[in-house]
């Protein structure tokens, strides 16, 4: 790759006197001084009494969500556990004798799902990789606890914090489609 050398324009005598930069800096200072001291609009917030309004798309803590029928969406595919850069996610698969999934057709759901919020870096890769839209970064940014163990959020807690997030419910549709096909002979349109 070729390199293009850009000539730097030499500063004029006036610019070398620092005065123009000094003035433009003071302009900003004066603007904020006017806003807070004269107009009485504070620029800081009295946190934690006052809470910050989280903007759209903010990446907060990841929680598990349920579908509109109040069923666990996670099927324990462990892709988030695999992709998680700080290894904060830990899933215990159900194994051959585990409890069946909430949704009849999904066959599988995690026996345990843990996120260590002390390790989590809120990067959002778990949400991006999830094939079931079962985990979302939500708006909680201030997580506190009195012990390390308390900061490892279990499945029940994650589901409770995550709430409901509707979706296309592919497993339900598959089951409905399969049930329609059991009617024999197949209906000709």
């Amino acid at each position, binding site marked *: 790759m070729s390199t293009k050398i850009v000539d730097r324009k030499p500063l004029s005598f006036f610019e070398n006197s620092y005065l123009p930069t000094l003035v433009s800096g003071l302009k900003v200072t004066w603007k904020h001084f006017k806003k807070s001291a004269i107009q009485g609009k504070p620029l800081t917030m009295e946190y934690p009494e006052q809470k910050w309004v989280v903007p759209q798309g903010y990446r907060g803590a990841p929680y598990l969500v349920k579908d509109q029928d109040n069923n666990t969406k996670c099927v324990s*595919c462990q892709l988030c556990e695999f992709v998680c850069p700080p290894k904060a996610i830990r899933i215990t698969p159900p194994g*051959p004798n585990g409890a069946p999934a909430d949704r009849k057709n999904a*066959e599988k759901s995690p026996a345990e799902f843990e996120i260590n919020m002390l390790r989590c870096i809120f990067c959002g890769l778990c949400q991006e990789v999830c094939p*079931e839209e079962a985990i979302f970064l939500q708006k909680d940014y201030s997580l506190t606890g009195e012990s390390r163990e308390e900061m490892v959020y279990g499945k029940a807690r994650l589901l409770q914090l995550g709430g409901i997030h509707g979706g296309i419910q592919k497993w339900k549709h*598959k089951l409905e489609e399969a049930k329609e096909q059991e009617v024999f002979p197949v209906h000709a349109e």
Partner: protein
Amino acid sequence: MSAPVTVESKPAPPPVEKIKVKVDGREVEVPKTTPDWLGKPQPTTMLQACAHAGVDVPHYCYHHKLPVAGNCRMCLVEFGTPVIDPATKKPVINEDGSTKIARSVLPYEPGTPRGAIACATPISPGMELYPGSPATAQMREAVLESLLINHPLDCPICDQAGECKLQEYSVQHGQSASSFVEAKVHKPKSVDLGPRIVLDDERCILCTRCIRFTKDIANDDALGIINRGSYNTIAAAPGRQFDNNYTLNTVDLCPVGALTSKDFRFKMRVWFLKETKSICPGCATGCNIVIGSRENSIYRLEPRENDAVNGPWMCDTGRLDYKWVGASDRLREVRIAGKPSTWATALREISVRLGGVKPGSLAIIGSARLTTEELYLLKQLGRKFEAITDVVEHSGEADRLLVHAEKAPNYAGARLTGMAFTEAGINLPQIRAGIESGAIKSVIAFGEDLVSTGLSVELLSKLSLLIVSDVVSTATTPLAHYLLPGCAYAEKRGTFINAKGRVQKFMKAVEAPGDARPEWEFLHELVHQVTGSNGYSTIEGLFNSMAKELPPLSGLEWSRLGDTGVTITL
């Protein structure tokens, strides 16, 4: 079984006739014939010729150890053959001197390239194969789309995900969308096919690998295809279960997630598993295996291909016999007279006590589950004290495919090191008589429960010194004056010698529980302290020095054993 699974390495076969073909324009010389699944020479196929050229042809139904079925159509490859002049019967030559090639086309549509299934089409001299051509790529895309018409795409809940050929070829040759808008045909899911196998009919691509395996290799014609068209499903014969000792091989064979193991079902995603090359300790066949483990627990065993031992197969009994390794009844601490102690104290005390043992008053009972190195070290101890030695016999049923009657992996090693004689266990009555008469006052037992071999608790309590090493607690372990916790095969390295004299090494997959240590490690310390001869602190050095001393192993080195072992003359 209609074919011998094991093919012993013979002197170099006579040179085979070679023919020249071109693969994507590159000339390669390939043998005219290649052994088929039975080992019989058959004309080399296009797929094998491509493999010679280093080109992978995607396939589902073809398997090198099964009869060719040619039904999945994934291996379609465009090809061309030299044009032969009908008058002279000689190849037609182009103006530039090259041979004129006729590309394969549809007979009714001469402009359209036509592929041939590479797995079943033999090559001919001068043939040109085009596995990299746009037409071949198009054929693969079309076949893959057709195979995916009714596939449920439930990879998130499928145990095969991560090692699935449908996934792999979809990445290489797939399209993101299907031309089909109709509803997918739904078939039965999680069907109970047999005691160890679950079938998901929706995922099945009907390659018939499982049917061919169970019919032709396991000799149990249990599976077939029922129903018609899109409703085709794999099923066990009416009123039967798919239940023989080789059913789990169909799980390995299944290129998709249709057949899955009940034992491994929903236990762990395969991409987390660390794969360690090992040897099955179930019997004297010594099948080559891969241990799949994650964070110190073993999740599954799979066969590892070795034509000199097990081919690509292993039996279900061996495959499911791994749970004792991580079980809770494992020995975790060194005990002196029943009280917890340390390795340093125990080994020091043992070497002092052994120093006072009169020659001929010691018996050493080893196990064919120990590695050759450990048996060799035990024999060195035995030689020092003129001890009477033996290993305990475990025998059972054999079958004609893989299962051997000797139910421990290293009887050949026990005989070779001199721990056992022609038959294992023939010295045991003499040892018992010796204890009864008081001639034998000390016993060292490694890896065997003496009580179950017929030495009663009363008899053992007569001994002045009983040193026991084992991996699990048995009826003998509470009686031991010195109890030394050992390692399972998955927790150490070493070699086993199978019934045919194959010296095979195995690697460590998981850590031993508690204070347990590999037997060879503390045995070499003990041998060093007692006999003063050099103890090797590495398994490589130990094996190499053992190979120098035992004539059948002469010339062998740890590094020369490779992954598949070396056959010696016993």
